[in-house]
Structure formats: structure tokens, C-alpha cells
């Protein structure tokens, strides 16, 4: 425990600093409006009454997020690898990938609601799309720019296509692909908030939106803190996974 505290001393110090700063601005000097920025004590006291609702929202949001993100990774990496390896495909598809990825996904919300039979499917589609373009683009670039010498090494060993893909191409491209996956995860969080703004009956963003409509900013603040804690946890888990996959690189 002592070692853990020492390891994360910087992070813990900044977190404590932010809490102290907020307490000074609210409880001590009353600089901020207590209607929009309730005291931390007041927000914390709401946890027992609302934890059930928050956890229900978490399950709902994670259901959307995990389904969409995993599908986006599978589609983006597999299609990106194919396009990255085939110069002909790359040449013909790249202009379209660039064009489609430039369309802001939130603008497609009306189309998604109209096309898909349920709001949930529309939400999954929008989160998926937001993550997909980023992963596709970075995977194409990553595979295309693999050091030729790795591929030549694989060629001299006569590695069959599947072995070559999983033991050479994907590991060699993984540093860049994972950067794309990380950016896509952040985008997925944003798209999750957009998706839960319409049609959802539960979810982390829904919780904030719902109580914001009733001007219950103490609950809005609770929602913010809860979302922040969940996002930090997910990003930490992602970073652990990334460090495990990239254990062979200099930076790890």
C-alpha cells in the first residue's frame, strides 16, 4: 500500500489539490454559485440514495459502450489490415475513407434514429461509427508503414498467411493501432453522451441530462463525479492492456 501510494503520489496530490481548490471556491470563500456548484459534502451525502440509479445507469451505458467499441475494434482492425496490405484496395478506398470519416457523427443522429428500429440500435450504431473511422484510418496507416524488413524476415521463413498476420503484421502494427484505439475510446465516451441524450431511459449521461432538466445541479455534479470515476477506471484498464501488448517496445 505504501509503495502504491508512492508510485501514484503525483496523481494523488493533483487530485487532492483539485478537491481542496473546489472546497475553497465553494464552502470556504463562496466564490461560486452554490446552486450550480454545490458543496462536495452535499454531493457526497446523496450517494446512498442514488447509488442504485447510478449503477443501473453504469450497466446500461457499459452495455452500449462495450458492444459498440468491441465491434468497432473488430471491424476497424480487420478491414484496416486488409486495406493496408493491398495497395490496390488502398488506392481506391482511401479517398472514400477520408471523406466519410470527415462527417461529424453526431450530425447523423436523425438518420440513425430513422433507419434503425430501436433507439438502442441507433445508439450502438452512432458510437460504433465514431470509433470505427479512427481505428480504420490508423490501422490502414499502421499496416502500410510496417518496416519492410519484418515482412522480408517473415518471407524468408515462409510463414503462412494466418501466422504472418497474427505473429508479424499485427504485432508490428500494434503500437500505432493502439494509439488509434485509445483515441477511439475517448470518442466513444463522447458519442455515448450524445446517444444517451435521445431515447435512453437510463445511463450515465442520461442521469446527468435528466437531473439537469430539473435544475438539480447537486445530482448533476454527482453524475459528473461518477462518470469521471468510471472513465478513469476504464482508461486505466485500457492502459494496462496496452502496456501488456506493447511490452516489447522501448517506451514500456
Amino acid at each position, binding site marked *: 500500500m505504501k509503495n502504491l501510494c508512492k508510485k501514484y503520489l503525483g496523481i494523488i496530490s493533483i487530485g487532492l489539490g483539485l478537491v481542496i481548490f473546489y472546497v475553497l471556491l465553494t464552502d470556504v470563500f463562496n466564490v461560486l454559485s452554490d446552486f450550480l456548484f454545490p458543496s462536495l459534502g452535499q454531493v457526497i451525502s446523496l450517494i446512498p440514495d442514488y447509488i442504485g440509479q447510478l449503477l443501473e445507469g453504469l450497466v446500461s451505458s457499459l452495455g452500449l459502450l462495450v458492444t459498440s467499441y468491441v465491434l468497432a475494434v473488430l471491424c476497424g482492425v480487420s478491414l484496416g489490415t486488409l486495406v493496408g496490405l493491398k495497395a490496390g484496395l488502398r488506392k481506391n478506398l482511401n479517398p472514400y475513407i477520408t471523406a466519410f470519416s470527415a462527417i461529424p457523427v453526431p450530425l447523423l443522429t436523425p438518420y440513425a434514429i430513422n433507419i434503425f428500429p430501436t433507439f438502442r440500435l441507433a445508439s450502438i450504431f452512432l458510437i460504433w461509427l465514431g470509433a470505427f473511422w479512427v481505428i480504420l484510418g490508423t490501422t490502414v496507416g499502421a499496416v502500410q508503414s510496417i518496416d519492410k*524488413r519484418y515482412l522480408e524476415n517473415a518471407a524468408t521463413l515462409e510463414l503462412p498467411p494466418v501466422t504472418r498476420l497474427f*505473429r508479424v503484421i499485427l504485432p508490428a502494427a500494434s503500437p500505432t493501432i493502439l494509439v488509434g484505439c485509445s483515441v477511439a475510446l475517448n470518442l466513444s465516451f463522447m458519442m455515448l453522451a450524445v446517444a444517451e441524450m435521445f431515447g435512453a431511459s437510463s445511463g450515465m449521461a442520461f442521469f446527468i441530462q435528466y437531473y439537469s432538466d430539473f435544475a438539480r445541479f447537486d445530482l448533476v455534479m454527482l453524475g459528473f463525479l461518477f462518470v469521471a470515476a468510471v472513465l478513469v477506471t476504464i482508461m486505466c484498464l485500457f492502459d494496462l492492456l496496452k502496456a501488456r501488448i506493447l511490452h516489447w517496445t522501448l517506451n514500456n
Partner: protein
Amino acid sequence: MLEVKAEHLSFAYEKELVLGDVSLHAKPGDFICLLGQSGCGKSTLLRLIAGLEKSDPNQLQVGGKPVEKPSLDRAMVFQDYGLFPWMSAGANIDLALKQKFPDWSKEKRKETTLLWMNNLGLEESLYDKLPLDLSGGQRQRFATARAFALDAPLMLMDEPFGALDAVTKALLQDTVLQLWDKEEQRKTVFFVTHSVDEALLLATDIVVLGQSPSRVIYTHHFEEGHRPQRDTMFSDPEVMELRNTLFRIIDQEIQSKAKAAREAGV
């Protein structure tokens, strides 16, 4: 133990002619050292033999057949990137063995890997180390161990010891020579080097390539039992005469290239 025959071999990267007219004949078991100035096409010739570049089937044949693509019969040792950095050094050899000997059990592959690691002076504890955690010399030993473990009849070594310090280089030269020499049926080896002394020490045949677009400008064959030895080569007048000849030929090529560049106004 493969024969390599190049007859009037030429090759160009897009419009730049690298090999002009190269003819050579490596008999099974020969240790051919390719010498020449930078950019003369030594590595290109090796890549053509490896099948990493396309050659005219009438101009280059290995084992009596045209070279169509890379093969496990032609083990390659690169100067860099010989090992995949995302798998352990031992797993690099294991992957190659799995490919060459698909019927072998996991235990037999590991046993063979450890045997060749031992032959190359690598401790067993290094099996699980990532290439990143090894020194340059250890990485190159692993790459060489993999090439020998594959038991390919033809070995292609592209300046494998070029980036190593003098002591490690000498140790690896001796190890490679011993391993090649002790086999009943010696492998045919093509070894690219910039170093005249390295060529004198290792080769059964020295082939010097001229400036690009290159051709063979000098060859020397050592009779069996008359190859220079590390401890006596610098006191052997015949070897020293050959050494001077090789330096003079390479220097003349460099001078003539510089003169041609001056005349062309480059």
C-alpha cells in the same frame, strides 16, 4: 550444399541498374565472401539469391532451379532486424523451427533451440529474454543460431557482424567458421562484408564486385587446407600479398568511380 549459378545476371531498381553483368558459380559447400565498395550491389545479389527480389530465371539458378520466391532452404541472416522484437529470442528460433519441421514436438523444438543457443555461446537463461534486452552481439548470435538450426543447405549472411565491436566480431567469426567447418556436408554460404580481413579469414572463395552497375572484377579461390588462419595470416607473405591486391583493386574502383563522377560533373 546447394549450387548457385549466376550467368550475366543483371538487375535494376526501377530505372537504376545495380547489377550490370554478374557471373559466378558457387559449388556446394563453398564459403563465398562478397567484397566491394558501398552501393556496388553485394546486398542486392544476396537478396536476389534469397528470392526477396525477382530475377530472370535464365540468369540465376539455385540448386539447378530458378529462384522464384524466398524459401526455408535459403536461411538469411540480416545485419539488423534479424529477430522479431515482440517475441522472446528463443521464440524467434522456435517459430522458424515450427515452420521448417512441422512434425516436431514442442519439446524437440525447445531442445534444438537450446542446443544451437549453446553452440553459439548463449546461456539458457536468455531463451525468454526479449531482443530489446539483449546486447547487439547476443542478438546476432540468436539470428545466426536460428539460421543454423534451420539446417538450410544455403546460408545468406548480409554483413551480419558489421555493427559489432572487434572482440564480439572475432568470436562470432570463429564460431560461424567452426560450425560450418565441422559439418559433414558443409552448407554453401554467401557472406557479404566490407572487410577484406574478414573475407580472408572466412572465405573459400572471395568475389569482388566492381562499381555499380557491377560485375565481378576479381575472384580468388583458397585450396582446401590453405585458408588463412587468424593467428598466422598477418605473418604469411602470400596472404599479405593477396590482402594488398584486394585493397588495391577496391581502391582503384573507388578512384575510378570518383573520376567518373567528376567528369560527369556530379
